[in-house]
């Protein structure tokens, strides 16, 4: 099987979906690129290159827009309401700030407010997360915020293989899906089949299996947690590592089963602590797996501050292997 980066895996998923279904189209800033210019329209494929090649193949279904994120999401939402399957790109998840209403008050709520009589099969893609020294307005995870809103499905892949299968599921899904691509992982490669395949929402991946501690990690924290766990294995500590892959729906069953077996839980996410996913999972366990818990539930996350610019600061800001290992040990002691 070929090694592919997460960027290429998502790109391949988009191609396959567009090939299969004429109602799929992509829309966003520079998803084609160079419109109105003397240059080669379609040469860009999104600032991270995820939509590369689509314009040249399907010029009518690869739509560049002005810098108007509310109108981009609205365009996707409206097209989906009348039966299309748009995949919109919002360049950075942080820009949810300028289009949140269209996501959380419109798209998310149509079906409910309309008494179950509409469907809105739109996918909104975002690059997300830290690690680029991109500072406070270009580094946020944001998926924890969106997980709060009923009516949305929220996907956070941690590797290229999952990204492709989850993207194909997202496009086929009849509900609105937010797809957060940890941008630090775009260049990370793994084996990805050429064929079309899907990964169901709400089914966690067991990335490592072990007996002592359950570790739940999201997005770019999954490979960091895996590395930390591998190091601890040498010290004789063995951990389950669960990657929920979708934060909404959440595979509660997988998490609770593991916690019931290990009695210990560490949750890792890159977002700040308050009202985030680490608290969400900790709260789940403190209720539904309470009887099994043998030690404090530890949350590893960023501190309650915006993302800093300087690499040294950002390195200290984001959770890393050392912090994950310390938390695992703390829950054991």
């Amino acid at each position, binding site marked *: 099987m070929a090694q592919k980066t997460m960027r290429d895996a998502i790109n391949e998923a988009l191609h396959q979906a567009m090939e299969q279904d004429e109602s799929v189209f992509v829309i966003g800033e520079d998803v084609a690129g160079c419109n109105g210019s003397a240059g080669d329209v379609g040469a860009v494929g999104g600032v991270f290159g995820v939509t590369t090649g689509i314009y040249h193949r399907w010029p009518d279904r690869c739509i560049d827009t*002005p810098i108007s994120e509310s109108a981009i999401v*609205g365009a996707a939402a409206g097209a989906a309401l009348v039966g299309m399957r748009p995949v919109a790109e919002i360049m950075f998840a942080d820009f949810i700030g300028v289009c949140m209403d269209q996501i959380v008050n419109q798209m998310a709520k149509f079906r409910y407010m309309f008494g179950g*009589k509409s469907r809105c099969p739109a996918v909104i893609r975002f690059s997300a997360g830290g690690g680029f020294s991109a500072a406070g307005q270009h580094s946020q995870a944001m998926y924890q915020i969106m997980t709060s809103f009923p009516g949305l499905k929220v996907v956070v892949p941690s590797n290229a293989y999952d990204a492709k299968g989850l993207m194909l599921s997202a496009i086929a899904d009849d509900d609105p899906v937010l797809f957060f691509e940890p941008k630090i992982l775009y260049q990370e490669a793994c084996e990805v089949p050429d064929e079309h395949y899907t990964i169901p929402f709400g089914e966690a991946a067991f990335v490592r299996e072990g007996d002592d501690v359950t570790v739940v990690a999201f997005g770019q924290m999954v490979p960091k947690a895996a590395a930390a766990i591998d190091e601890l294995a040498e010290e004789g500590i063995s951990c389950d590592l669960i990657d929920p892959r979708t934060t909404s729906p959440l595979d509660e069953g997988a998490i609770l089963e593991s916690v019931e077996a290990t009695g210990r839980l560490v949750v890792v996410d890159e977002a700040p602590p308050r009202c985030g996913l680490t608290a969400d999972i900790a709260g789940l366990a403190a209720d539904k797996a309470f009887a099994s818990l043998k030690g404090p539930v530890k949350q590893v996350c960023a501190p309650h501050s915006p993302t800093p610019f300087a690499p040294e600061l950002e390195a200290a800001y984001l959770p890393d292997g050392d912090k994950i290992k310390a938390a695992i040990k703390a829950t054991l002691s």
Partner: protein
Amino acid sequence: MSIPTETLSEAYRLMKTIREFEERVNAEIMNGQIPGFTHLYTGQEANAVGVCAHLDESDTIISTHRGHGHCIAKGAEVAGMMKELFGSSEGLCKGKGGSMHVADIDRGILGANGIVAGGPPISVGSALAAKIRKNGKVAVSFSGDGSVNQGTCFEAMNMAVVLEAPAVFVIENNYYSEHTNISYAVGCDDLKARTEAFGFPVFVADGADFFAVYEAAGKAIEHARAGNGPAGVFAEQGRYHGHFVGDPQHYRGEGELDDLRENHDCLKNFRARMAETGELDAATLDAIDAEVMAEIEQAVTEAKAAARPTAEQVTEDVYINYGAGA
């Protein structure tokens, strides 16, 4: 411009239906029968009807918080709407949306909307779909004179021009956004010009005159349907009620409301025109009035008797399928 008699009688029927629907809703709110926030369209009926007369079921509209008129004009079932306003599980939205979210996707009604200017971006999406599918459909959004100052509305207008999408922006100037006059909230002197500066034609009409709106909307919709990109309609007509039921309307000048009801009434104007042209006689119009009154009465009776939602329904209809995790 000659309009088929059927179109005329249907237009009158719809305007009258909206008028009586709203007046009755007003009364039922006073009676404590209708919960929530409700905004009445009374007075502006010709806007909705004049525009929607050019649309078929698969053209779409998206509405505002003041949505009853748009929905009725586009074909929403009156009893279903009334039940919805009463919060019945038999309502158009099963009692989950209420006045601010009446919708009927199958009839191309993409919903009333509680967020000012929430609709225009969505309408551009519907228009874009029509463009991609090359199916000749148009997508109409309604906005008030206050709504046009919201960023999403501007974005949608520019986006529609850029995408050459068949989006029609209907701006309804009823002079107020809640308690603020357009002369304050719209900074420039000429809202039509500000709108046209985005790069599409805007056709103006007296919103108390069905024929004027019909003509202006016809031009705008034809422009969009023909593939020339977006177009606008700008209709001026005051509302007869407060912003919401119970609004003390401190912003009204002396005699303003009387003048509106007296001299700016699309139903009166319509009847006067018919009397002039003889296209529909008074008896026909009277008969329509009677039918409408009966329909509204029937709708209220049904709404009062309709099933109430139950607690289990709270968590239904959030997703089509929430997958394994749910």
